[in-house]
């Protein structure tokens, strides 16, 4: 036997931990629409049984936008099939997942160009004219 896939025992993935997250997203969307307040849900802090995180990801589906960030390892930032609900996965330089978040917002902050980086880039460009 070389991998866990060969173990013949199969556990049914139905523990009921996905539904509360969907309800939380529903409330977060109301908050975003009514008051303009974004919400971040740290998926690492919630209990999930085998297969439940995959089930949540499948339920939310894929939307129109996927972005890849290359900073201290790769990150994938993608909008789910529910506009305003973003699935964010951060990986470290060893390609291990170090954070998984759901952001309910119009645009995740990490996608915006940051003033410090804009300033450093401006300085680099300015050097061409010195």
């Amino acid at each position, binding site marked *: 036997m070389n991998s866990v896939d060969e173990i013949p*025992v199969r*556990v*049914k993935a139905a*523990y*009921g*931990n996905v539904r509360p997250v969907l309800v939380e997203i529903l409330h977060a969307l109301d908050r975003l629409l009514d008051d303009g307040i974004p919400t*971040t*849900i*740290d998926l*690492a*802090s*919630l*209990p*999930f*049984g*085998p297969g*439940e995180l995959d089930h949540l990801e499948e339920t939310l589906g894929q939307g129109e936008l996927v972005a890849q*960030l290359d*900073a*201290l390892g790769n*990150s994938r930032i993608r909008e789910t099939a529910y506009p305003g609900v973003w699935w964010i996965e*951060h990986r*470290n*330089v*060893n390609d*291990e*997942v*170090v*954070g998984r*978040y759901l952001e309910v917002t119009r645009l995740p*902050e*990490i996608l915006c160009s*940051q*003033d*410090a*980086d804009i300033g450093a880039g401006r300085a680099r460009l300015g050097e061409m004219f010195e």
Partner: protein
Amino acid sequence: MKYTPTVGEILQAKGVSRRGFLKYCATTASLLALPPSMIPRIAAAIENARRPSVIWLSFQECTGCTESLTRSASPTVEGLIFDAISLDYHHTLQAAAGDQAEAARHAAMEENDGNYLVLVDGSIPLANPGYSTIAGISNVDMLMDTVKGAAAVVAIGSCAAFGGLPGARPNPTGAVSVQELVKDKPVVNVPGCPPIPMVMTAVLTQFLTFGQIPDLDKHGRPLAFFGNTIHDRCYRRPFYEQGKFAETFDDEGAKAGWCLYKLGCKGPTTYNACATVKWNQGTSFPIQSGHPCLGCSEPRFWDKGGFYQPLSTGHFGSGATVAGAAAAGVALGAVAAAAGRARKNKYTKEA
């Protein structure tokens, strides 16, 4: 004292962008079990933090705690050692040995007097100090000498925190924990056999970020990780509420992933973060693998009766009380959940 660069300077020197830094802060918040609303405060703190000197002492232990830490994924231990902390003394990991190693310990103590962290794994034998010595120095002498100039002491693993296996009855070496000897310094206990690697790095990151030790429970454990029981955060909890229990390790209930309470699970009385942080890069934890929790992060867990005895029979002498205990568990869970919310609100207000 030599100049130590801030973490912000280290990351800048490595060409890490602000986006990369924000990502680092987001994963740090996750690591510290802080709400994402704390990220801006963490960013401000980390930027100006300086890496602390760390002296790691190994006494009556099995090296399992070091094994666990060096498999910590977030941040990588290499990254932690080289970027976030300055590990100046650790028998197992350092290249130096004998007099050179002891000289490194004394040099780190002098250079960072009053500011360094002492990490200890293993218990300390008092019956006869000769049971465990390093470079001819007894464990108790080395501990008391090293903590004199420390900012804080972190007891890593159940042996250092509570005496652990060496301290189990009849305790032949007279093993004691760090907190039984160190009375004039803050002591943080990070128990577990071994502790979850991410919890160890999180305590170091907390110190690095905020320059102080985290809030602790009555056993000296960081509340962020030891504030809820395994049972409170267990994905099998819904089955407990429904009264669906595995009765043996191979019955239909076990195959369906039902609650392991009747097979001796110590989840309801064990405070730790295994159910959410999990092990092996978040792959699984004992209950997910079909085995009851042993309660390894609780004081004297070796002497608390059989690992496969239900908690109710252990305390009340009859399996018939399981149902009653289950009902009580529901009420306890509600209290713990309320406490968890209160804590989160507190952090949110501070941000």
